[in-house]
């Protein structure tokens, strides 16, 4: 193969950028095994004690449980609402279609601290306080655009003739929906749900505003920890986070083809 200098420059650039992307993850994982209580690099001796502390620390355990509850509600609501809306968006014209779309997609652009602050104020005006319902609603608003986008892209790739065929053979609309559309949309639905779940579980800024001590999620507990302690507990927890997230995404990519879902992969 005869490679041009431009090709080599491209390869070099990609290697450098990948190194930049991966560096903090590698460093934080190594730091998690540091034996000493002060963060120094490189570690002089290794130990697993920070992993033990990360897994037994009360605030993290509560945060994990709260985060899981919020994540399950928020991602399931976002999936149902978002998928239905994406379907209507793709297939129909209706009153206020573009207004509704802009409002729902605007949480991609509106700062999360603004969303959190607004919901906190709305909740206090309505006498809700910082309950789980408010946290879940905040997360639904934040992750909804990702579900809508992911399902919408899957709808674009769907061959509508299959539905027409089923309909012309006498299948009522709900039967077409359940037996044709839903199965064909499955990869988009699953990855939309997965995105929503991961993003909700890790959402920090919005959560910081709408959670209280009783409802705080894991990222909020982690943030409070960094502000109080400087030991490597959080490095250990981050290491666990990184391994789980990377594994989930690799599996998702293998089974669902993330490239198609993210619209970055097109066969010409």
């Amino acid at each position, binding site marked *: 193969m005869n490679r*041009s200098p*431009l090709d080599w420059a*491209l390869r070099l650039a990609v290697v450098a*950028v990948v190194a*930049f*992307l*991966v*560096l*903090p993850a590698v*460093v*934080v994982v190594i730091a998690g095994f540091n034996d000493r209580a002060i*963060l*120094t690099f490189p570690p002089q001796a290794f130990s697993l004690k920070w992993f033990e502390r990360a897994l037994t620390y009360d605030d993290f355990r509560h945060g994990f449980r709260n985060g899981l509850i919020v994540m399950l509600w928020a991602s399931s609501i976002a999936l*149902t609402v*978002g998928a*239905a*809306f994406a*379907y*209507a968006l793709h*297939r129909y014209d*209706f009153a206020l279609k573009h207004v*509704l779309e802009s*409002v*729902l997609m605007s949480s*991609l*652009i509106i*700062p*999360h*601290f*603004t969303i959190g*602050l*607004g*919901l906190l*104020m709305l909740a206090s005006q309505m006498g809700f306080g910082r309950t789980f319902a408010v946290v879940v609603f905040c997360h639904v608003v934040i992750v*909804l655009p990702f579900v809508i986008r992911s399902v919408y892209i899957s709808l674009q790739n769907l061959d509508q003739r299959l539905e027409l065929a089923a309909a012309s053979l006498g299948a009522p609309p*709900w039967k077409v929906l359940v037996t044709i559309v839903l199965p064909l949309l499955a990869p988009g639905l699953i990855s939309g749900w997965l995105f929503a779940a991961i993003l909700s579980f*890790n959402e920090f*800024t919005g959560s*910081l*505003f709408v959670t209280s001590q009783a409802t705080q999620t894991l*990222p909020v507990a*982690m*943030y409070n920890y*960094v*502000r109080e302690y400087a030991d490597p507990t*959080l*490095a250990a927890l981050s290491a666990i*986070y*990184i391994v789980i*997230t990377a594994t989930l*995404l*690799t599996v998702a990519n293998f089974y669902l083809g*993330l*490239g198609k879902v*993210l*619209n*970055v*992969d*097109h066969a*010409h």
Partner: protein
Amino acid sequence: MSALSDRPFLRLFVSPAALIAVGFSAAVIAILQFSLRAYIPGELEPGGFSLGNFAQMGKPIYARAFLDTLLICIETALITLVLAYPLAFMLVRAKSRVLKSALLVTAVTPLFLGEVVRTYSWIIVLGNSGFVNSVLLNLGLIDRPLQMMFTTFGVVVALVHVTLPVMVIMLSAAISHIDQGYEKAAASLGASPARTFLTVTLPLSMPGIIAGVTTAFAWTFSAFATPQLIGGGQVNTISTLVYQLGFASFNFPFAAALSLAGLAFTIIVLALFKRATRPLEQLGGQA
């Protein structure tokens, strides 16, 4: 019945989304309401109607924060663009499926780690006894640690890491839509690879560049944990000031006014950007 069956499920499918849009809009309206109320020190309930919150924003500290935030957002978006392009290009054009998947997962994973884990990781990389400083000290390149924590530089480095994945996704989407026939045509007419890239590929990927820069800008503006923890009070952005006003001073009316001003500021900057890049976007659209 026939009018209904033209669009089955329409009402059922749109109503829940409309409900969420209404709640979300109500939250934004709540901010507007609070921003127009007076702050009574020591009281959580705001006072009567007042424009005082917006008048206070003329103070130098807030003007400065707007300027600093703007600069941080622009720097971050541009550096991210330059770093993301080669990765996105390789991601789309690589022949090997394994390489493609590896690049995609590497590029996308940080997006899902959340701001706290990423920011914390960068504290260990940039800290005075962190990774970069210990490597440089051990190599004898420096004799005392470089100060990277609590600086705008440190904040921008970590923010670039935050916005890189979404930029890669948006650029890849645009690059994957480019018909490679145009590039082959340019090459067969004698254009060098560099020239083909600059005059064909780059202009055709302009919609992705514009979408990516817009999103990177908005996300940087939205970032809170990174400027708060890495900036450590030395770097004030709108997000850190809103939080301090709300949760340290309990001055919610002013916090509301400031975040509203921040929102207006983002929208104006992005609208200007959109306007300025319209001719460039059409460059991509015509193909």
